[in-house]
């Protein structure tokens, strides 16, 4: 299908994303060096059964609760003791191309940076990570692996992208959810300008398969507070019609729409017991990513 507003990722954007690998390293290295616990460690390690303690078993696997009740040493056995498997779903639809004046980067660049950073963190701790780029279809898929070269492969995929598709089209998210069979950690990195029903359905699917899902919602500050003053012609990305308007008169109604949208997204995430984090592209990626990782770490320490 020939798209008239076909957008190839601009060169400078491509360059910046190409440096993702280095960027991700510098972003995260400082943050997690000295951390004794990983923010992502051990999600998918599933308890299978107890067996009696024998010589040679590590003490840390002793289930002290059982000891407390029965006065016997039992060791927890896990069904799958492989490393964590994570998948980044990155939205590469045309709307991700938007970059307002205050933004540090376009939404896509931002999303790619986040994806690379997460990949780096996971690979560092020998977890496997994969990447899926999607618009109305799945455009690229990199199978999860913990190989150190994976980060470079992912960065390459992220920077060689043409942004022209429409995530608005129904169906892609649920389909993706369907395809992810192995239990793991799923990051959805998108502006979520998708049909809400799709999103909810996809979340349900993912939860149904016992994935741990983190929704990383990337938005431009312009989209959040609509600061336009002069007469403006808004040209719809993703094949939506143009709109000639006086932005000041539309602002209140628009903000109301956005508020409703954000509310619904958050509610959907809460209902599905899915982590929801919003990223504002005007905040430097380093700041927001480190903030998110810290938050994540803190929560783990706190109790899960």
């Amino acid at each position: 299908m020939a798209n008239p507003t076909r957008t190839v990722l601009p060169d400078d954007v491509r360059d910046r994303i190409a440096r993702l690998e280095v960027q991700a390293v510098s972003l995260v290295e400082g943050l997690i060096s000295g951390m004794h616990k990983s923010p992502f460690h051990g999600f998918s390690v599933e308890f299978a059964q107890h067996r009696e303690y024998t010589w040679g078993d590590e003490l840390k696997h002793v289930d002290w609760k059982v000891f407390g009740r029965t006065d016997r040493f039992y060791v927890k056995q896990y069904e799958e003791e492989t490393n964590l498997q994570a998948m980044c779903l990155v939205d590469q639809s045309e709307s991700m191309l938007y970059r307002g004046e205050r933004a540090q980067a376009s939404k896509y660049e931002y999303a790619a940076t986040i994806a690379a950073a997460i990949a780096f963190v996971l690979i560092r701790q020998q977890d496997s990570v994969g990447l899926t780029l999607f618009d109305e279809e799945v455009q690229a898929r990199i199978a999860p692996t913990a190989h150190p070269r994976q980060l470079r492969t992912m960065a390459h995929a992220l920077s060689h992208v043409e942004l022209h598709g429409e995530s608005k089209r129904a169906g892609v998210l649920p389909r993706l959810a369907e395809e992810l069979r192995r239990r793991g950690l799923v990051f959805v990195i998108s502006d979520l300008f998708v049909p809400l029903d799709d999103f909810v359905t996809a979340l349900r699917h993912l939860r149904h398969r016992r994935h741990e899902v983190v929704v990383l919602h990337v938005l431009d500050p312009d989209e959040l507070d609509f600061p336009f003053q002069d007469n403006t012609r808004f040209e719809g990305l993703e094949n939506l019609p143009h709109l000639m308007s006086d932005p000041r008169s539309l602002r209140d109604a628009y903000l109301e729409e956005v508020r409703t949208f954000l509310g619904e997204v958050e509610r959907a995430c809460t209902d599905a017991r899915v982590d929801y984090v919003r990223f504002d592209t005007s905040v430097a990626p380093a700041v927001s990513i480190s903030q998110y990782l810290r938050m994540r770490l803190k929560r783990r320490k706190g109790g899960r």
Partner: protein
Amino acid sequence: MPTFLNGGVLGALALVGLPIAIHLLNRRRFKVVRWGAMEFLLAANKKNRKRVRLEHFLVLLLRCLAMALIVFLVARPVATSGALNYLPGARESVERVILLDDSGSMGYAAARSTAFARAKGLIRRIAQDMRSARSSDLLSVYRGSKEQADLPPSPPNERMGEFLTQLEDWAPSEASFDAVGALKRVLGRVLAGEDAPQRKVIYLLTDLRQRDWIGDQGLLPKALAQVMRAAPKDDVAFLIVDVGSSERRNLGITQFAPGEKLAMEGVPLQLVAKVKNHGTQTAVDVQLVLETGESRVPWPPIASIPPGEEVEVRHRYTFTSAGVRQLVLRLAEDPLALDDARALALDVRERLKVLLVDGDPRPGPLQAETAMLQLALAPADDSASGVEPDVVTPTELPGAELRSYQAVFLCNVEAVDASALRTYVERGGGLAVFLGDAVDLEAYRRDLYQGGQGSCPATWASASRTRASTTPRGSRSRPRPTPWRRPSAANTTRSCATCGARCA
């Protein structure tokens, strides 16, 4: 129809189109944004479209109206009562009464026109306003100095037009304004009028001079208030319109007279004038101009006149021809013209012919009875006195043409032809009698006094004769000479030796 003071500005109403043009131009200038969150924007637009359109329309309308309003403000519409009459509570018609203060002070010119001219302008405007919009109203006009109305209550018709033409010629009177009396009189007339409308407005057009409105004792305001309060409050409204100015400058010529009794051709005549400063500030460099009919002679300016003071100036003027002449002395520059000029009418004579009758003509210098008198009346040098004396002996007197002389001097004449002199005196001739040793007093008493019926108003006593007779004729003792001064002949001193001890 509403009228506009600056009707020409209404053309600028085209500016109403300006906001529309700006709106259209603005629509052509826009930014382009490639927008991701288009769904929300479209939804917002769909919800808002009607409201936004209405808002835009209203804003545009308000802008256009604002332009129109500004243009109307500059054009200054005047709401005429024709329109106001339709408002609830508006009265049908009103009788407008103008009482015009036409006192002399209304001629005071300040700010390029006199108070009186401003008052006339106001009357014209009221009349025009009535003609254009208040045709049911009546207008009457009274002047403070006149007993009768100048314009009886009339609707705005031809008669009023005639009146307005007459109004052009009006000038301030020289009287002062009796505010209380005039108001009482006008109020009496107005309230007595039968067909007049119920509602009346009395306009007092005045310059509000202290003298007319406060009075010397300060009692006038009270009296005025009394008069006004006596009028029915609901029906009569008073409107005092101050057309005067706050300027207080005023100079006046209070006197202009000749310093001498005789005005003669070629003889410098002294003129005396007094100028008073009625104002509150010292007047400096006061210019006076003498208008003689042929020329305007500026007098040297008076350096300064303090407020309230009067300054006297004396200057000479020489007439170059005889006849009845008018002199006008004018103040060159003063706001109140009324007291700025004084006129003087003078009978300027070519010369004054007098007849000297010498009763004792003797040869030799200054020996004749009339010699000194002749010198005194017509000095021998260039200084012109204008007097032309002819000398005759008593015997020549009956033959003389008395009518051509202004005065006859009898100098030591024994007796005269009383009937001829009587006729002469009765016609207005002057007669001077100098007595001497040759005089027959009895004959004088008989012929000239005639017991009160003659040409002399008094008779002669005899006592003096006794004293006179004691003086021996040969050794005349002359009286002390009296100096006779004239500016041109000030160095000359002559003595009168005509009539012995009698003549002083």
